[in-house]
Structure formats: structure tokens, C-alpha cells
């Protein structure tokens, strides 16, 4: 293993979802040496996730094929960013090795994750996020014949339901927390963005209900039933084999923050700050897609292309897309306005509900704490393997805390990867230690 090797490139792109792929294809004609790093086994991000039996949309296949045809684009899958090791250098790790990569321009396309809120029973096996269910089914999870309840908020609930049904599951309830007026208003507004399918909104889906939210999941060893709040009409208990529950998306800003890029609140969550050319506050670092504020894959494609053009100096090409971006920004604003989370969702957790799943910290331990740092110091909340990516977003919503950015390493890392940092770049000496 030559852990001391340093790779160099002109443009480094982190994330191979719509934004990352669009960025690479926009930058490619310049002839720049481009590397895309992504932590999943295949490119596509979440929305174009590949897997056994997945029929990828044309838009995804076209871009994947175009990337494969570009000799100056190298796609590095199954690889995580561990830390910045110099101002323009990152430490990477895959299943086999760790290595450093130096860049001249960096484009962050780190996407978003689901907002996952704690409620009694949420740690039971069989409870997942909503997008999580979709991702797992696409990766081969068998759900045929299972009774599934999908709950939370946003269009992703419908997408998850469609994927689960196609795989043979019985989706017995889709519970949207937003009220009927809000959802109907969103459906009506979709006419402004042809291509955003109105029919996918499921208002005519027999199992779709608005104004409902999860109260608890019950089961012995795994989820067996879900209790839902039915607006002002009491509660319902639904027997099920799975519960998929997600409350919208949260931008993945951690790497950007680690690199010193400024963040701002957008649609109620921290997002990376970018200018009209997708440049962050740090010279030579751009950001595109959901990490600049959640707004969907069409917006991510436009932002990614703009960042790719801008990174190689094709400013006019980037500027030409600004009108399109404004349209998708408006769509994002409508989405967040219509699916704003209701106040009672801040109080789903019971005193003994675990809020931090990594360190098993109960809500009752966190409620008296003043802020995120106070909670970390006293309870270990946010100090487990996920480094607060789940409980940080949850406590922001529940308590109004402002979680600090994770410190490096940004992901659990092998000692060998860190040890490789110690080797001098110019040393040709390879010392072999007996294992």
C-alpha cells in the first residue's frame, strides 16, 4: 500500500449526483483534468441511485455515459473524504487504502440527507427514513408482501411509495404532516414548472392522507404497528412490517464548513453560501446542488453546470443559466413554504426516547441542557459514529440548537489511512513493518 501517494487534479468534484455529474460535464470541454469522488458504489447520488433491477431514467444514463466517454474525467466511487490535509488537499479513503488528492478548483456537490426526527420506537429495526426506504429497495432490499406505512413530509413520501409498490410492497398509509390546503396549493403551483409531475403528487392515492403525523412505533424486536395522529380527529393505529419516516431534507454542509466555507440559513436549515457563479466564500471552492439549499434535482443540474463552467473560467456559459436557476429557486421556495413542518412535530419524543442513536442519549438528558456544546460535554450526544449528522439536525429542530460542524476526521477512518499522512511526500523509503 503506498499511502504516501498524492494525486493531483485541476478540478475536484465531491459527489456524483446530478450536481456533480453536471459540473464535470460542464468543465470537461476545457480539457481540465477532473476527478469526481463519491461515497456510493455507483454514480447518480440518491435520485439516480443504481441497483439490481433499477431502470435508470434517460437523463441519468446519458450523463453517466457521457462521463465514461470523457478521457479527462476520472470517477472514484466508494470513497469518503476524511479531512483537509492542506489548504488545497483532501485525505480520501476507500475500502482498500487512504490517499491524498490536491486540487486547483474544488466543487462541493455533497447533496442532502433526510431530517429524521426522534419519536418513541424510532430505533426499532424496520423503521427507516422515507428516502432511506427508497434507497434500500433500489439496492435490493426485498419488500414484496410487506405492509409499509410511509410518514413525514414532502414529495419524497410519494416517490418512496412508488418505489416500494413497484417492488411488491403494500403501502397501507402515506401520512403527510402538511394540511390538505398546503398540499393542494403545492399541486396547483406545479403548473408553473412543467416537468414536475402533478400526477406524482398522489392526491388521488387511496392511502394518502394529509394533516397526519407519526406518534410512535411499537413492536417486539422490530416494528409491528404505528400510531398516527389524525389532525384533530384523534389517532389511528396501523399494523405494518415497516415504517418509513422522513421530514424533508437537510443540506450536507459538513465538508464545506470543515473547509471554512460560510453557511447561511436557507429554508430553515444551514446551507453553503454561494454567489451568482456558485462560488463559496473560500477562493477556488464552489458548491452546487442540495448543499446550497434543498431545491430538487433540476435546480442541482443547473447549479452544477454553472459551477463547472465557472471553475474553468467559462463565465458566459455559467451566466447563461441564471434565468433557469431563478425558476428552480422559486420552485424550492414554494416547496418549503407548502411543506413547512408543524409545531407539534418538535415534541414527538417522550422523555425516554433516544435522541442520539449512536450514543443512546435520552430526550430527558438533553432537555435541561443549554445548547449543543453543553449537551455534548454532559451527555456525549453527537459524539458517536455519525458525528451529530442525525441528532444535530433533530436537536436544531426540537430545541433550536445550532450544532457545531463535525471535527476531522469527518468519518470514522482506519488507522492505516492516518498513518499514511505521517510519511513524507519526498521520501522514497518504504519501511515494511512485520504485522
Amino acid at each position, binding site marked *: 500500500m503506498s499511502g504516501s501517494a498524492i494525486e493531483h487534479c485541476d478540478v475536484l468534484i465531491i459527489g456524483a449526483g446530478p450536481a456533480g455529474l453536471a459540473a464535470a460535464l460542464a468543465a470537461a470541454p476545457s480539457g481540465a483534468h477532473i476527478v469526481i469522488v463519491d*461515497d*456510493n*458504489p455507483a454514480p447518480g447520488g*440518491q435520485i439516480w441511485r*443504481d*441497483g*439490481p*433491477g433499477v431502470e435508470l431514467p434517460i437523463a441519468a444514463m446519458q450523463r453517466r455515459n457521457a462521463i465514461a466517454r470523457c478521457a479527462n474525467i476520472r470517477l472514484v466511487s*466508494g470513497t469518503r473524504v476524511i479531512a483537509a490535509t492542506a489548504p488545497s488537499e483532501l485525505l480520501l479513503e476507500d*475500502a482498500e487504502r487512504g490517499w491524498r488528492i490536491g486540487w486547483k478548483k474544488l466543487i462541493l456537490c455533497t447533496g442532502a*440527507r*433526510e431530517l*429524521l426526527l426522534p419519536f418513541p420506537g424510532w*430505533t426499532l*429495526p*424496520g*423503521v*427507516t*427514513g422515507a*428516502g*432511506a*426506504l*427508497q*434507497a*434500500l429497495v433500489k*439496492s*435490493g*432490499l*426485498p419488500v414484496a408482501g410487506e405492509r409499509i406505512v410511509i410518514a413525514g413530509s414532502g414529495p419524497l413520501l410519494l416517490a418512496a411509495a412508488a418505489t416500494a409498490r413497484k417492488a411488491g410492497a403494500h403501502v397501507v398509509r402515506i401520512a403527510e404532516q402538511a394540511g390538505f390546503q398546503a398540499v393542494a396549493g403545492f399541486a396547483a403551483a406545479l403548473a408553473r414548472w412543467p416537468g414536475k409531475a402533478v400526477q406524482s403528487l398522489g392526491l388521488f392515492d387511496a392511502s394518502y392522507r394529509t394533516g397526519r403525523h407519526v406518534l410512535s412505533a411499537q413492536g417486539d*424486536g*422490530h*416494528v409491528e404497528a404505528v400510531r398516527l395522529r389524525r389532525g384533530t380527529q384523534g389517532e389511528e393505529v396501523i399494523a405494518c412490517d*415497516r415504517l418509513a419516516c422522513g421530514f424533508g431534507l437537510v443540506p450536507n454542509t459538513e465538508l464545506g464548513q470543515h473547509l471554512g466555507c460560510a453557511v447561511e440559513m436557507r429554508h430553515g436549515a444551514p446551507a453553503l453560501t454561494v454567489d451568482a457563479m456558485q462560488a463559496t466564500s473560500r477562493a477556488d471552492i464552489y458548491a452546487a446542488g442540495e448543499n446550497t439549499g434543498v431545491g430538487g434535482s433540476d435546480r442541482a443540474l443547473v447549479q452544477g453546470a454553472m459551477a463547472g463552467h465557472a471553475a474553468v473560467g467559462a463565465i458566459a456559459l455559467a451566466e447563461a443559466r441564471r434565468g433557469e436557476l431563478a425558476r428552480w429557486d422559486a420552485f424550492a421556495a414554494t416547496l418549503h413554504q407548502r411543506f413547512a413542518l408543524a409545531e407539534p412535530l418538535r415534541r414527538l419524543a417522550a422523555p425516554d426516547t*433516544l435522541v442520539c*442513536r*449512536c*450514543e*443512546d442519549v435520552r430526550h430527558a438528558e438533553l432537555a435541561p441542557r443549554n445548547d449543543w456544546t453543553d449537551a455534548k460535554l454532559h451527555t456525549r450526544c453527537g459524539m*458517536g*459514529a*455519525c458525528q451529530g*449528522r*442525525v441528532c444535530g439536525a433533530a436537536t436544531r429542530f426540537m430545541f433550536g440548537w445550532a450544532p457545531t460542524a463535525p471535527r476531522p476526521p469527518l468519518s*470514522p477512518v*482506519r488507522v492505516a489511512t492516518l498513518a499514511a499522512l505521517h510519511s513524507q511526500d519526498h521520501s522514497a523509503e518504504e519501511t515494511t513493518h512485520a504485522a
Partner: protein
Amino acid sequence: MKKTETVALRINGQTLSVRAGTSVAAALRIAGSADMGTARRSVLGQARAPFCGMGICHECRVDIDGRRRLACQTRCEDGMVVETSA
């Protein structure tokens, strides 16, 4: 293009065959029909299964060929040896 080839791997000593491209997270469920694919025990000893599905929550971390990896971001390979801590 439908992939129909299969790969064989071992999960906690049990050999199973899955469709090529299947994630280890999905294979955990295929291997353990009753436990929804438990991957690990939490600090308090609770069973935990894949939760976020996208490499964020680390609930699905398992031992794959002697290294700790995330089941949801790892594809099953022929001859792979997976050990859960459940």
C-alpha cells in the same frame, strides 16, 4: 439491461446467494428473515438495522472481510465475509 447474475457471500457463517449489485444492507435482511436485517447492538444493547440508507447514520456498520464498513454503501461481492455485531 437487467442484471441476472448472482454472487455468493457469507453473513455470520450463513452462505447466501443474492443478485449482483445488491447492497450488504439488503443482504442482511435476506439472511435474517425475522430481524429486519439487524447489523449491530447499540450502546444500551438494542438491535439496530439499516436506518438512513445513504451512509449518514452509521447504524448499518458491519465487519466486511475484516474491516468495518457501512452495509448500505457496500455491494455484495463473491466470497465476501460479513460479520454483524448483533
